[in-house]
C-alpha cells in the first residue's frame, strides 16, 4: 500500500516538473494563431469579408468574432484550409460576401485618366504609380485584383482583365484534380 | 505500342491458380468441404462488394473483375477449419470485404489484410467453431450441420502440442500421427515458388518471414528442446507457407520499400513464433500479420532508399 502511494506520488512529482519545464522552455511568444491564419488568407486586401484587410480578418477569426467562410478570393479551398488549421468543421463559402472569381488585374485606360489620385489612395497595396494631374497606371505584378479602385474612379477608366494561362503556368488536369 | 505487362486482374488470377495445389492437398485429407467453403465465400464476397459499390456509386463490373475480392474470399475459406458451419465463412467474408476493404475506400486503400481481419474477427467471436478441425476425410454435409454425429474433430498438431505442454508433457513425449499439415504446406510452398518464378511475388517477404520464423524458433529450441518445438515443426505445421507466400505478400497492406519488406517479413515470422509459444492461440498468422500491418507506415518512412544525387 505504502509502495503504491509512494510510487505514484514520485511519478506525479517527476511528471509535473517535466511539464513545468516544458511550459517555460518551449513557450511561444505572441499569438502564432493569427499569423497562421493570415498565412492562409490570399492577401487580396479587398474587404469583402467585412474587415479592412486580411490581417484584421485573421485577428477576428482567432478571437472568434468572425466565421471562416467569409473570404471569396480564398475560395472553398481557403475555407477548407482554415477549417483544418483550426480543427473545426468546414463550411461552405458564404455567398453573402461575394463569389470566387478567377484572378484579375486592374488596368487603367490611359486616354481617359484625369490624374485625380483617388485610385492611388484607395489601393490597399499601393499598386498604382502616378500623381496629382499626372497619368496613373497599375503595376501589374503588385495588383491583387481586389476591385477597391473601381468604385472611386470618377471617370470609370479602370478595367479588370483576367489573367490568361500561358504554357508556363498551365496545370494539367489529371483525374479531375486541377481546379482550372 | 506497350510491351505486354501483366495487369492487376491477371496478377490476382495467377495467385488464385497458385493456391490450387495446397487446396488439392486439403481435399485429399479432409474432403470436399473446403471447396464448398470456397464457393460460399466467393459468392458472398462478390455480392457484398457489389452491394457496397452500388452504395458508393462506383461502377460494379470493372471492380469485381479485378479479382481481389475473390482472392480474399479464397484465402479466408482456406484458412478456417473446413468443417466450420456455413454461416461462419459467410460472416467472415462479409466482415472482411465490408469492414476490411470497402469501408477504407476499396482496393488499394486498406491498411489491414482483409482476409486476416476476417479471420481474427471470427476467431475472437466464435472460438469454438474456429478451433474444431477435421481429423479425417469428412462429408460435406457437416457444414450444413446435417450429419453432426459423423463429424469427427480433433486438434491440429499445434493445438495438441500447446495443450500437452500446458499439461506438463515435454516435446519428446509427443507423437504426431497427422501428416496432413505437411502436405498442405508443401502444396502451398510449390504454389509460392511458382509465383516467385513468375515475378508476381517478390522474394523479400517470403524469405524474411521464413528466416524470422526459423531463427526465433531455433533460438528457443536451442535453449530448451523439451519445451519448445523445433523450427522444422513450425515450418511444416500451421499456415506457415500460406502466410509466407500468399498472406503476408498482399501488396496493399505490406511494406513497399525493399528493406522495409525484409523487416516486415522478418518481424511477422518472429511474432508468429512468439504468439504460438507464449500467446493464447495455437496458430498466430492472422494476428502477426495484423500487428505488422499497423507498423507499415512507420517502416516505410524509415527505410526509404537513397535518392540519386542526394
Amino acid at each position: 500500500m505504502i509502495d503504491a502511494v509512494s510510487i505514484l506520488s514520485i511519478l506525479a512529482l517527476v511528471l509535473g516538473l517535466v511539464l513545468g519545464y516544458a511550459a517555460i522552455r518551449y513557450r511561444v511568444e505572441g499569438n502564432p494563431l493569427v499569423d497562421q491564419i493570415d498565412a492562409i488568407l490570399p492577401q487580396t486586401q479587398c474587404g469583402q469579408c467585412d474587415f479592412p484587410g486580411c490581417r484584421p480578418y485573421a485577428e477576428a477569426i482567432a478571437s472568434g468574432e468572425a466565421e471562416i467562410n467569409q473570404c471569396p478570393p480564398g475560395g472553398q479551398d481557403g475555407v477548407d484550409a482554415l477549417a483544418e488549421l483550426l480543427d473545426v468543421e468546414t463550411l461552405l463559402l458564404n455567398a453573402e460576401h461575394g463569389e470566387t472569381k478567377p484572378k484579375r488585374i486592374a488596368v487603367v485606360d490611359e486616354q481617359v485618366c484625369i490624374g485625380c489620385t483617388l485610385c492611388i489612395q484607395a489601393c490597399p497595396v499601393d499598386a498604382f504609380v502616378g500623381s496629382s494631374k499626372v497619368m496613373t497606371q497599375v503595376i501589374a505584378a503588385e495588383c491583387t485584383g481586389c476591385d477597391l479602385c473601381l468604385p472611386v474612379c470618377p471617370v470609370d477608366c479602370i478595367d479588370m482583365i483576367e489573367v490568361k494561362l500561358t504554357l508556363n503556368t498551365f496545370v494539367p488536369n489529371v483525374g479531375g484534380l486541377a481546379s482550372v | 505500342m506497350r510491351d505486354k505487362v501483366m495487369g492487376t486482374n491477371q496478377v490476382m488470377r495467377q495467385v488464385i491458380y497458385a493456391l490450387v495445389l495446397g487446396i488439392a492437398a486439403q481435399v485429399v485429407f479432409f474432403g470436399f468441404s473446403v471447396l464448398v467453403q470456397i464457393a460460399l465465400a466467393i459468392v458472398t464476397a462478390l455480392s457484398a462488394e457489389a452491394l457496397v459499390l452500388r452504395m458508393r456509386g462506383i461502377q460494379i463490373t470493372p471492380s469485381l473483375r479485378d479479382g481481389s475480392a475473390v482472392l480474399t474470399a479464397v484465402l479466408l475459406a482456406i484458412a478456417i477449419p473446413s468443417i466450420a458451419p456455413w454461416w461462419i465463412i459467410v460472416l467472415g467474408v462479409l466482415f472482411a470485404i465490408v469492414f476490411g476493404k470497402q469501408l477504407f475506400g476499396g482496393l488499394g486503400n486498406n491498411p489491414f489484410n482483409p482476409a486476416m481481419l476476417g479471420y481474427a474477427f471470427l476467431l475472437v467471436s466464435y472460438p469454438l467453431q474456429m478451433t474444431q478441425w477435421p481429423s479425417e476425410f469428412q462429408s460435406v454435409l457437416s457444414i450444413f450441420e446435417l450429419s453432426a454425429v459423423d463429424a469427427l474433430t480433433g486438434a491440429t498438431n499445434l493445438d495438441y502440442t500447446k495443450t500437452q505442454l500446458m499439461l506438463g508433457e515435454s516435446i519428446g513425449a509427443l507423437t504426431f500421427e497427422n501428416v496432413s499439415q505437411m502436405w498442405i504446406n508443401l502444396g502451398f510452398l510449390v504454389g509460392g515458388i511458382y509465383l516467385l518464378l513468375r515475378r508476381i511475388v517478390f522474394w523479400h517477404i517470403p524469405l524474411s518471414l521464413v528466416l524470422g520464423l526459423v531463427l526465433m524458433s531455433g533460438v528457443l529450441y536451442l535453449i530448451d528442446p523439451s519445451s519448445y518445438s523445433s523450427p522444422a515443426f513450425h515450418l511444416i505445421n500451421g499456415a506457415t507457407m500460406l502466410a509466407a507466400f500468399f498472406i503476408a505478400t498482399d501488396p496493399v497492406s505490406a511494406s513497399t520499400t525493399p528493406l522495409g519488406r525484409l523487416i516486415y517479413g522478418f518481424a511477422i515470422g518472429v511474432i508468429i513464433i512468439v504468439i504460438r509459444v507464449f500467446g493464447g492461440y495455437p496458430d498466430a498468422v492472422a494476428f502477426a500479420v495484423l500487428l505488422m500491418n499497423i507498423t507499415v507506415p512507420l517502416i516505410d518512412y524509415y527505410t526509404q532508399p537513397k535518392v540519386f544525387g542526394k
Partner: protein
Amino acid sequence: MSKFAFKGGLVLENPFPAKEIDLIRIPLPDKVVLPMQQRIGEQAKPCVSVGEYVLTGQVIATIDDDRCAPVHASISGTVVAIDNQVMAHQSGLKALCVTIESDGEDEWIDNSVACTENYDFCTPDTIYNKIRLSGIVGMGGAGFPTHTKVQFAEGCHTLIVNATECEPGIMCDDALMQAYPTKVIRGVEVLLHICGAEKAIIAIEDDKKESIKLLKKFCKNERITIEAIPTKYTSGAEKILVKSLLGIEIPSGGYASDVGVLCQNVGTLVAIFDAVVENRPLISRVVTVTGSAIKEPKNLQVRLGASYDYVLGFADIDPGENDIRMAGMMMGVDLKGTDYSISKNTNCIFVNKPIEKAAAQECIRCGMCNTVCPVELLPQQLYWYSKSSNIEKALDYNLLDCIECGCCSHVCPSNIPLVDYYQFAKALNRQQTKEKVQTDNARERFEFREFRLERNKQERAEMMEAKKKALKEKMAKDKVQKEAIAAAQERVNAAKTAKESEDAR
C-alpha cells in the same frame, strides 16, 4: 554489374524497326509557321512585320535576355501573318507565331561573319556569340539554349556527346550520324576548342552498329573516344549518362556543369558545326516519322516551321483517323489532329492506329514502379501524395528530381498514368510558389501602407503641434512687445503730464 550499367530503367524493343536508316532531304515547304515561344525562356519579340520580305537565315525575332536564342526564318519569302497558333503542347494553348510563305527561291542571307574553318583563332566569346546568334538550342528535346549551357560549363574536364537515342522508335540521331559522320566529329572538335575540356566521349547505344562503325572510321582525334553502351531506356538521360560513363553522380537539383561535365546531343553538335564553320543558322532538323499506321519509318530532314501535314505527306500512312504523338513513345505528348509545325525540338512524330486505352485501376501498392525508376525515387509514394495534392510531402520525396521518363507508368499493372500525376504536381508546385511570393509581397505592401498612413498622420499631428507652438510663441512675443510699448507710452504720458503741471505753477 557490367561497365556502363545502371539501376532501374527498362529494356524496350523498338516497336517499328526500319530496314535501312536513310536520311531523306525533303523539298522546301510552301509555308512555315515559326513559334515565338521556344521551349525555355520568355517569348521572343518579332522584329519583322506582316508583308515584309525575309531571307533564309534572317533573324525574325529577338529576346532581350542574352541567355536565350533568337528565331530565324527557315525559308525566304513574305511574312503573311503574326498571330496566335496552336502549340504542340498537352495544354492545346495558342501562342504567337510568325508565318512565312515561301517564294521558292531559298535565298540565303549573307551570314559570313567571324569564324569559318579558322575557328581556332577565334576567342571563345566570339564563338559563343556565333552559337547564340545562330539560334542553336539543345536538339535532343529539351531545347535549352546551347551557348548558355556551354558558358556555364566553362572549365569543364569532359565533354559527353549524347548519341544514345535511348527512346525506342526514334532514329533521327542515328540517321544524322550515318549521313554526316565527319560533321559530328568536326562539331565535337569545335566544342572542345571552346569549352576547354580535356577529352570528349561520344556515347552510342550498342544497337546502332553502323553509326559506331562510321564514327570510329572518321575519328582521327585522340581526344575523342567512342563508347558503345548497353541498349536500355533512359541510358541517355543526362544524369544517368554521366553516372554510367564517368561514375559521377550529379547532386540533386544540380547540373552537369557543377561536376565539370558538358553534355550535348549529337544533333546540337552538327548544328554547332554548321553555324560556326559554314555560317548557317539553325533552320532545319531531322524528324523521324514512324508508328503503327506507317508502312516504313522514315527520317526526314525538314525546314523548321513546316507543318505536320506536309511532313507526313512524305510517309506512307494508312488512311483513317490516326493518333498523333510528338516525341517518343515513353515521353511524348499525344496531340489532336495535325495542325502543328515542326519546331527546334520535334525529333519524332508517331502516327498510330487508334487503340483502346486500358482504363486506369486502383493502385495495389505492388511496388513495380519503385523497381524501375532510374533516379531511384519512390514513384508510388509520389503518386499517393500527388493524388491528394500534398505538394509539401511530394517535394520531401524528391518530386523535382523526377525526369518524367515514363518507366513507372509503363510497368504499372493498374495502368495508372503516373507521369501525368507528377507533371500535375510539379505544375501545382510552380503555381503555389508563385502565389506564395505574390501573397507575401501583397502582405508586405499592405502593412507598409498601413504604416505609411499612420506615419503621415503622425507627421501631420507633429507639424500641427509645431505650428501651434510657434504661433503661441509669436503671440507671446507680440504681447511682450505690446506691453513694452504700452509701458513706454505711459512713461511718455506721465512725463508729459508732469511737465504740464510744472509749467502751470
